[in-house]
């Protein structure tokens, strides 16, 4: 029997793992030949293969240890383990069948928050498209080019305060007869109504037209809050169920 601790220099260079695999018929396609050559030519490899084979056989013959007790459940244990209907449902939602709910709820939460923020910001009202005739189309001699007026139209310094004002400005600019001495930059951002209200008519202009900025913002805000609340509720429920009912042995 070869001494394992005084292996020959040649045997040290041999692939012992390959021999161990070959010993149990697991060398793999293409390596059988190399392994059988090693076993045939090297006595220590042959001994290694025989011993690995013997170890594998002996481990397989190890007697089973008798169990010390009966592991069947009693009715009381079973009732305690099953829990209430709520327990069982909460345990169910921690399972893999509900694995997609959490990312979906997270996405819904993001969308809801974006909807809420967009609903709160005033940009929607300001972004209502203007009617066809705009300042750029006014045939005023000596009027500044659109590039010259762009700074005030972008709202950098102009007093565009509300969507209502913007609406009024559009209407003022599109009046068929603009005043001859109009300061165009001022006229764009601070217009006057072109048509005086007739007697008996109200001069209160609508803050927003139906179906445009304001109602869309309200809808976005309400929907966003609803979606956010729902998603937060689902995530909280899943988190609670996971914390309480997730079974580490099912990992």
């Amino acid at each position, binding site marked *: *029997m070869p001494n*394992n*601790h005084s292996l020959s220099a040649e045997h040290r260079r041999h692939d*012992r*793992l390959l021999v*161990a*695999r070959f010993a*149990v018929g*697991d060398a793999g396609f293409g390596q059988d030949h190399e392994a059988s050559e090693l076993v045939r030519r090297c006595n220590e490899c042959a001994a*290694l293969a025989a*011993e*690995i084979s*013997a*170890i*594998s*056989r*002996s*481990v*397989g013959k*190890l*007697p*089973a*240890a*008798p*169990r*010390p*007790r*009966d*592991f*069947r*459940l009693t*009715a009381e*244990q*079973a009732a305690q*383990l*099953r*829990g209430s209907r709520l327990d*069982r449902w909460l*345990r*169910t939602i921690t*399972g*893999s*069948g509900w694995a997609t709910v959490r990312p979906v709820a997270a996405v819904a939460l993001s969308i809801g928050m974006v909807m809420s923020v967009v609903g709160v910001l005033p940009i929607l009202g300001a972004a209502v498209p203007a009617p066809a005739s705009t300042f750029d189309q006014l045939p005023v001699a000596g009027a500044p080019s659109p590039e010259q007026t762009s700074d005030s139209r972008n709202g950098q310094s102009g007093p565009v305060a509300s969507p209502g004002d913007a609406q009024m400005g559009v209407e003022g600019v599109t009046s068929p007869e603009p005043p001859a001495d109009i300061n165009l930059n001022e006229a764009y951002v601070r217009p006057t109504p072109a048509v005086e209200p007739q007697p008996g008519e109200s001069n209160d202009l609508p803050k927003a037209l139906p179906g445009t900025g304001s109602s869309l913002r309200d809808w976005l805000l309400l929907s966003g809050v609803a979606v956010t609340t729902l998603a937060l509720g689902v995530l909280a429920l899943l988190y609670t169920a996971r914390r309480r009912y997730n*079974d*580490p*042995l*099912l*990992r």
Partner: protein
Amino acid sequence: MVEATPPESLSGVDPAAETPEAADADGAPVGKPVDTLQRARDRALVERAVGGDLEAFNELVLIYQDYLFALVVRVVHDRDSAADAVQEALFSCYRNLDRFRGDSFRSWLTRIALNAATDVLRYRKRRPADPYPEWEDDSWQPPAGEEASPERRTMRRQTARVLTEALAEITSDQRTAIVMYDVEGFDYQEIADITGVSLGTVKSRIHRGRLALRELLSDDMELLRE
């Protein structure tokens, strides 16, 4: 505790017979039909147990408790810890029976039991006061036939003892893989599925584990050649 008395129809079924290496009474290899029948039997019992039939679950316990204990005790190397781990595994199994979606109940149960065994090993690693208790229990010794001579019985005991001690010395991953392959008869793919590692990792653990065993058993190889 009530002594286990397996029902006549089930007590004769050895869970290990599901494996490809298993053989029937005549030594003929047991093939897929038996495997399929046992899986169908398990699924039927699981369905009844999910419906609230405790007796159905206890039939499953009767079928698998010996196998589970034999597997877990080789991994944790301590009978008391193994018994606790098996009990925990069966509790977990019962609690989550409606989440069983796989094809093989035996593999699912084995995975739960091995997770419980791994928890025992982790706990022991954190408190290494008594990492591998000595076992003096005679029940660990291999059963000897009536015809066995005292010398032969002594030799078998000695073989089982040195092998068990050597198994306790290698890493828990290697030990688990070797026990599952050589003792319980799982194939490589089943072990990979149950332990959640790749096929190559399973093979590597088994072969390297055997090489480690060979180093540990170098002075006792004569026993193993018997």
